[in-house]
């Protein structure tokens, strides 16, 4: 099936994945709000399924590839030459499937046999897998973000945390070492960022659900270092990162009672707020750590339309 170019100019095909409909729903709310504000239509992929997930990739790679390939094929069927996956794990799984299917004939063969058997288009025409961070940086750009700012940031400097999967092993979203695009975009809308050496270190991933002390320990290192660098909040681009860093701060405090709550936000929440969105459309009330502080930052008086 030939790619329908008009579909692309009309908007973006959006692959939510499981998190953005559940634990990470604040990410979806703020993402949709932000894209609406920027007049970038986001259209949810019809009949999508589990992305294949990084954990599944580790136990049954073939099944994971097939799951991911169905989503990619649906995108192709919908006429999309690209798909936007906001969750880092979805992004990586889809990206890896596309890459492996093209690079390794045995993977490509399995994927295509499977797609044929369910009467879906094969992946001979590639589907570009994109992350919103890269879409915002490339398609919107710093200038446009800067021009749209209507508020001042009340929350103090933040630490940008990119997570492990967005820039490795593929570095299309940003460079693999010390990525800066999120920092640049936040700086552009008037939010200061601190140097943060742990930007791409492991957040604990699903260990918080299996071997909790290992997972929490890793999250703790990230939260404490952000605070140590003077950050008042951590800004993320992945639902699992946000979940781990935010929800386990009570556990962290058991071993380090001195640890102060550090709010953990999505970049889409902060950007949309600075561009004038209403707090109720950003899901900020769903963030747990430092909830009072967050409420203050995202209140109409605090973020008063300063220079308009």
């Amino acid at each position, binding site marked *: 099936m030939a790619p329908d170019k008009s579909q692309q100019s009309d908007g973006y095909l959006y692959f939510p994945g499981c998190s953005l409909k559940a634990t990470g729903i604040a990410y979806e709310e703020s993402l949709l709000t932000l894209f609406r504000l920027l007049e970038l239509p986001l259209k949810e992929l019809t009949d999508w399924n589990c992305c294949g997930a990084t954990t599944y990739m580790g136990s049954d790679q073939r099944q994971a590839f097939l799951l991911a390939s169905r989503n990619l094929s649906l995108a192709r069927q919908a006429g999309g030459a690209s798909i936007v996956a906001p969750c880092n794990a979805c992004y990586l799984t889809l990206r890896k499937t596309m890459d492996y299917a093209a690079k390794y004939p045995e993977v490509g063969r399995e994927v295509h046999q499977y797609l044929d058997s369910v009467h879906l288009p094969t992946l001979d025409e590639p589907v570009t897998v994109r992350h919103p961070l890269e879409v915002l940086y490339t398609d919107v750009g710093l200038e446009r973000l800067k021009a749209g700012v209507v508020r001042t940031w009340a929350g103090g400097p933040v630490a940008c945390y990119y997570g492990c999967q967005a820039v490795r092993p593929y570095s299309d979203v940003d460079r693999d*070492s*010390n990525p800066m695009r999120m920092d640049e975009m936040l700086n552009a809308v008037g939010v200061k960022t601190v140097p943060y*050496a*742990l930007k791409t270190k492991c957040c604990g991933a699903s260990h918080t659900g299996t071997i909790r002390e290992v997972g929490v320990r890793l999250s703790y*290192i990230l939260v404490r*270092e952000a605070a140590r660098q003077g950050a008042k909040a951590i800004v993320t681009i992945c639902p699992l990162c946000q979940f781990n860093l935010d929800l386990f701060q009570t556990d962290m405090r058991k071993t380090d009672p001195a640890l102060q709550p550090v709010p953990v936000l999505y970049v889409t929440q902060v950007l949309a707020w600075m561009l004038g969105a209403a707090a109720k459309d950003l899901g900020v009330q769903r963030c747990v750590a430092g909830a009072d502080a967050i409420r203050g930052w995202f209140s109409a008086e605090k973020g008063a339309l300063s220079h308009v």
Partner: protein
Amino acid sequence: MSERNGSVRIGVYVCHCGFNIASVIDVEAVAQASLALPGVVVARDYKYMCSEPGQTLIENDIREHRLNRIVVAACSPLLHEETFRSAAARAGINRFRVQMVNVREHGAWVHEDSAAATEKANDLVRAAVARVHFHKELDPKRVPINSNVLVVGAGIAGIHAAITVANSGKRVYLVEREPTIGGNMAKYDKTFPTLDCAACILTPKMNAVRSHPNITMWTYSEVAEVEGYVGNYKVKVRRKPRYIKEDLCVGCLHCVDACVFKDPRFPDDFNMGMDKRKPIYLPFAQATPKVVVIDPEACIQLKTGKCKQACAAACERGGVSFDMTEEIKEIEVGSIIVATGFAPFDATQAPEYGYGVYPNVYTTMEIERLVNASGPTGGHVVMRDGTTPKSIGVIYCVGSRDERHNRWCSRVCCMTALKLSHLLKEHTNAEVYNFYIDMRAAGKGYEEFYQRILNERVHFIRGKVAEVCDWALDPSEEGKLVIRVEDTLTGFVRRVPVDMVVLAIGLEPRADAQEVRRIMNMSCSTEGFFLEKHPKLAPAPTYTDGVFIAGCCQGPKDIPDTVMQSGYAAAEAMALADIGYFEIEPNTASVIEEDCSGCRSCVDLCAYHAITFNEVKRKAEINPVLCKGCGVCVASCPSGSIRQDLFEDEEIFGEIEGILARV
């Protein structure tokens, strides 16, 4: 076909090469079969055709049977073509009426089926016999050689080559880009494995260059253009203005003292930017020539024209000249030795090690200056934050053996790091941790040096460092640089907090290597180092006759290897100069003028710039000295007006007919 060249009398000689050929190919049968071919008068097989008796056999046959063409079925012509051509010449046949058939590399060594291999040998011999019918009597061309030698780059490689050539009585032009000769070696503190001071062994050679009657030394100069060919290169050298009259300056430095900048404030390149200098400066105390230079980017007079010119006033000899301009020197040389050196790997390209982010991360090049008595701190190891390190981590293979950067081993970094570990320990008594992947101590006395350092209470941790960071996990790490590494000998991931980190950076081609390559008409290997003619047997000559390479521009190497290679390059240049002429294989192409339509399609195709277009005659012309006989122009000429000796149409068609004439 045989009668075109008069009475053709061919001898065919099939070599056994011991068992090399004879164990697979029935050499006797091949010789026998060739007797039936037109023109073949005599055919023999022999155990070692290249041996003295083998050659004598051929020579005797030539005389006895009045042979005028020879076919030898043996090994690759690269090995013994010259042997058999000489034998033929001694017996009175033109050396180019010999044709070799490779039945070893192309036959016995690559086939297992004896019968088929023998049949193939028969085919090839038939082809050679048919071809040699048409071989003309040719004479190799001779080109006179100018005995002058140009040496480009005056680090240890260029210095050693220049002195060697000059000692043989030839005129040497030594061109160096920097204001002083000495190169990278001048920056080093001590040299491994003997720990003798680099300056002590280098400066006498720098002096020898300066005072040598046969060496013309041009510093602060670059080769702008090279034209011509082996033995006859015309070179333009651009002498940049140093705004100081070299013949007047005595290096008293009164001008430097007088400069309107009371304090040095511009980064001092010689000290890797860790110190400051004034706009007018001497690069270092033993700079050769001992002549100051003015930096046009920093000097107020040169930037704005509005300075009181205190330096000029302070010079009693009137040596300062602000209106000096670039000067072009034209010289003629017979050969060129390129010794342009390396560039140290840019450590900011490996951001995980924090160079440029954390002030106390250094490169090995910087440490060389930091431990040096004439360095920015007078040899005291004091870090950028003013403190003395109590613990130091040395990270090996930075930028080398890494798919993200350079795949090659830079060869010198292990030893450099060991040497600096020793010196840092000696200067600071700090705990020194070496993080290495493999210890490469291959060189005379190197392994012994490694063993010595192992016994100096220096720590060794085997593992590729993941990152250098400043995030502390516990109070002992606060304020330290933490080296994260998997210790592959114990199987643990470790965090080693240190005060100072030293990155053993690798060697890579200089940024302008491609530009130099173009000027010299050389090739580069894939990684960008200049390409030698043969990696083992001709590591200094290049594919351009009369252009030689020496030192790290050909690939990373230590000082002993550099000196050996530059001596070898010098010997090659001297051999050319001494014999006085260069003999060219007459397999070159030439234009049949009356047929040339002047379309110029051949001109750009020639990889050797051997073809020019004569605007008056409107015809292409081929310089036989530059022509390498590749045949591209011959094949591409739309009007068929280019021919090539030893590859005439009739010779090639003869060969094809021969190979297809299996009965």
